[in-house]
């Protein structure tokens, strides 16, 4: 399904992209992502396709706002039945709850359900409306980190099973990882769209790289013609080797993966390395990252498993590991 919307107020915004399967629109806070969803749902004045000009009651959308917005005075099945008409609405609501695996909690009020269960009730209610498009506003924001991935997997499985295109807006790069299609929004416009693997492999700008959760996106300036170039990193007041086809004097966003940052003991550091102090150590299931202070900048570096944590270090960034985007 093609989404093409233009909003004038409260902020000017335009967006045009394809929604295919579970599509995630990734953007920073304040970009107007929620506003776009509300516009498609008909809650904000806007023009565009789909549903142009239809009153909001007649737009076949399943809208799941942040926090799920279940009716607190109704229990789970009554919430789902709210989207239904006719004498069979209770039986139909129960069937929808069965489908999301919550039939046994049908009599519970929303306050008695966990965040993930509330989300599934809200999804059942939205699906019961028989929408042509599902709209999900920050679907991971109200979820407990411990169960988030499982709840998300179930949500996506249910969306796929329903066969309805879904548009989820989020600033959470983790959600982008599970999308069928990924759309990036920056400065209130769409800057990149495509399959997640393509987008992750080739972000179009530093802003896109930041949205995708890439670390070490920095500002710099190229000095010298291609082939004999260096990168001036003003925040660290340091020069880096670089190899790009961009013109001399270009302002760039550049990025290096933490795994590519080379760490040296200060006493054994080769010439041309940058002095750094260790600010923070981040140990997780997938290894250890060090937050290094280089002048005014912070640089993340992966600490190899066999290395102990140094108090100070010297870092080197290999030219081949640096990606540059003109700004």
């Amino acid at each position, binding site marked *: 399904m093609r989404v093409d919307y233009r909003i004038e107020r409260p902020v000017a915004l335009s967006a045009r992209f394809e929604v295919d399967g579970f599509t995630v629109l990734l953007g920073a806070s304040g970009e107007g992502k929620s506003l776009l969803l509300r516009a498609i*749902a008909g809650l904000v004045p806007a023009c565009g396709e789909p549903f142009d000009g239809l009153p909001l009651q007649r737009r076949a959308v399943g809208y799941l706002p942040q926090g799920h917005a279940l*009716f607190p005075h109704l229990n789970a099945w009554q919430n789902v039945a709210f989207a239904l008409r006719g004498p069979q609405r209770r039986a139909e609501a129960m069937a929808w709850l069965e489908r999301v695996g919550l039939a046994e909690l049908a009599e519970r009020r929303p306050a008695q359900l966990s965040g993930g269960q509330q989300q599934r009730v809200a999804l059942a209610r939205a699906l019961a*409306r028989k929408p042509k498009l599902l709209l999900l506003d920050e679907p991971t924001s109200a979820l407990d980190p411990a169960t988030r991935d499982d709840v998300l997997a179930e949500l996506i499985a249910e969306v796929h099973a329903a066969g309805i295109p879904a548009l989820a807006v989020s600033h959470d790069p983790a959600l982008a990882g599970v999308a069928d299609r990924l759309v990036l929004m920056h400065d209130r416009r769409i800057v990149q769209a495509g399959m997640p693997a393509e987008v992750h492999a080739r972000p179009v700008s530093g802003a896109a790289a930041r949205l995708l959760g890439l670390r070490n996106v920095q500002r710099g300036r190229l000095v010298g013609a291609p082939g004999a170039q260096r990168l001036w990193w003003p925040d660290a007041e340091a020069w880096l080797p670089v190899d790009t086809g961009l013109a001399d004097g270009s302002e760039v966003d550049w990025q290096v993966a933490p795994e590519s940052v080379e760490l040296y003991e200060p006493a054994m550091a080769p010439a041309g390395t940058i002095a750094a102090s260790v600010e923070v150590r981040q140990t997780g299931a997938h290894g250890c990252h060090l937050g290094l202070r280089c002048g005014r900048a912070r640089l993340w570096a992966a600490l190899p498993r066999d290395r102990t944590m140094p108090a100070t270090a010297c870092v080197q960034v290999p030219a081949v590991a640096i990606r540059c985007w003109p700004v």
Partner: protein
Amino acid sequence: MIPAARPRLPALAAALALLLLALPFAGLAIATDWRHFGFAQGDGGAVAVSLGLSLVALLLIVVLGTPLAWWLARHRVRGQWLVDALLLLALLTPPLAMGLLLATMYGPYGPAGQLLERAGLLLTNSAPAFVMAQFYAALPYYVLAARAAFEGVPRELEQIALTLGHSPARSFFHVSLPLARLGLAAAVALAWVRALGEFGVVLIVAYYPQGIPVKLWTNLQDVGLSAVYPLLWVFFLVALPLPLALGLAVRRRLA
């Protein structure tokens, strides 16, 4: 272990305030002559007038005030402050002054009064005048309390109802109204007490038919303090159970 020092002075002041609050009610219980408990002539009629006509006034207040309260809670228009000021003005106008204003507009020589009299509706010393006095006295209280109740309903829930295919009217009756019910009930209770207990406005435009407050006044004037107690008990019995129960329910909900 040293026990934590309890602030004595605030506790004493609070106890004194509670005692002062309770004293008049205790006084009524003590002063009532329970052995010769009997009503003055016309007390029964006053109770009937007060209950019957207050119910009519309450109905009018709810029917007209609820849409206004909802509109005020949900819409912002240019010059909104004028609407707010008008409501506050009606609320803050002393009852006697409001009675005089009503007499000016709806009295036999008032512009609206003359028109309505020609249509057969007399708004001085009549049942409709009594209802009108109560309506004006209690409407601002109801509207402000009901507006606060509607403002407490998350707008998002009303919008979700619309996205689920419901009309604004259905959304109002199935979402806004049930979610605001406690606050609306409190607003109804407030309006009920205000209407039933209204004296100043009623005195000016509807001395007759006499309801409980005016009858209390005439009993006091004609017989003395002892003659008001039985009717006063009835007044408390009919006016207060609903607001008291709701007030306590709201406190429990907040706790």
